[in-house]
């Protein structure tokens, strides 16, 4: 989706606000919403955050966005209902989802299962090949940043086969190769860019065509 979250290359977004010796959390409620989000298994969080109204997205802090998007996601999936949220009382028979217990947390914190899919899928592109990022504008979740669309780059590295994040909500996860694609800054931004600057973007096969 061409949403506000896709902000690579936007200008005049304000000064960088750097906090020295910044704490991991700035308020107790940030700790709690982070942990609730971490423990939750509802799919589709990224998209839910991306469809927050743009003005809200920019106004809210990161954890405010997390709170609102996760609440909306749980409502959408029927994990909680609006009535439950209002009264604080669970409605019987509406429990949906798994519980992460305290005993399971230590293992979950270090669980590092590779997301690489061990499937015999042939890569469509080879290292060193020139490719063009396709001009795709799906209304759904995508990891193809707007600033790369239609631009020409070079395959730097084949990372192997991964599920296609654009298909997260579908039954068929469309596993395919992911490449690191190297774009010259001048290709992306024109003559104003520096000749020695490059942007590397990880891209699935479906985002690319030969150039």
């Amino acid at each position, binding site marked *: 989706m061409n949403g506000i979250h896709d902000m690579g290359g936007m*200008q005049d977004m*304000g000064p960088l606000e750097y906090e020295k010796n910044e*704490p991991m959390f700035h308020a107790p409620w940030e700790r709690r919403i982070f942990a609730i989000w971490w423990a939750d298994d509802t799919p589709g969080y990224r998209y839910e955050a991306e469809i927050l109204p743009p003005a809200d997205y*920019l*106004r809210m802090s990161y954890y405010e966005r997390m709170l609102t998007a996760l609440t909306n996601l749980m409502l959408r999936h029927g994990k909680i209902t609006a009535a439950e949220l209002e009264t604080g009382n669970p409605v019987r028979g509406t429990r949906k989802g798994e519980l992460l217990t*305290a005993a399971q947390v230590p293992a979950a*914190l270090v669980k590092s299962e590779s*997301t690489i899919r061990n499937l015999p899928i042939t890569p469509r592109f080879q290292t060193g090949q020139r490719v063009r990022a396709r001009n795709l504008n799906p209304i759904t979740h995508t990891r193809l940043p707007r600033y790369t669309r239609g631009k020409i780059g070079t395959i730097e590295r084949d990372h192997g086969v991964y599920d296609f994040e654009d298909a997260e909500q579908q039954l068929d996860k469309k596993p395919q190769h992911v490449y690191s694609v190297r774009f010259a800054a001048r290709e992306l931004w024109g003559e104003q860019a520096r000749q020695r600057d*490059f942007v590397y973007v990880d891209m699935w096969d479906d985002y690319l065509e030969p150039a």
Partner: protein
Amino acid sequence: MTTTRRDFLTAAVTAAGAAVTPDLAHAHGQEHGHDHDHQVVPSDPALRVKALESLLAEKGLVDRAALDAIVDAYEHKIGPRNGARIVARAWVDPAYKQRLLTKGAPAIAELGYSGPEGEQMMVVENTPKVHNLVVCTLCSCYPWPVLGLPPVWYKSAPYRSRAVIDPRGLLREFGLQLPDDVELRVWDSTADLRYLVLPERPTGSEGLSEEELAAWVTRDSMIGTAKAVRPTEESLHERHP
């Protein structure tokens, strides 16, 4: 007087008001005939989180002790000191460095670090001729097992928007002026890979032990917004795990 985009956004935000879950508020208003000023969800995030946590706990969807354990881990155990140990090892052990640059995650796991947002790791090396910078323009992707949770600025609009179009200007704001002949590589973490910058080992650090070297490695030097530097009294007492 010209209206800047920021003026416009400020106006838009004001107009949007505090109705963060408009659908819900609307449904409630219809159902009970209340006026729309009455919000179902309190606007104070602290109260909203409390309400959500209570409800989920009541429903058996959240174990409060599990939440405590998660917070404790990310506040006290998982942070940039992990990444600093990786970098220090790579500085003293060429074979380790080779493994780290070839296949990040298994080499990082050799020192005991693994977990969510670190399943696939790519480590990129700074040299006198190449500087690397990491960003996630679409979201907030960051290598948790080695750096912990990202700082606010990393997740902010100014950083995410500028890192790909004006990286040298951005680095100057961090106090880092890159020479013109240095190639700058910006890594936008758009897929499942997470990035760690291997900073250059600074001059003056010769002969130090691996443990001493780790103190020279800052969080920012592993994102690429700074270089590794001699530790100061202040940096030795930073609160990050």
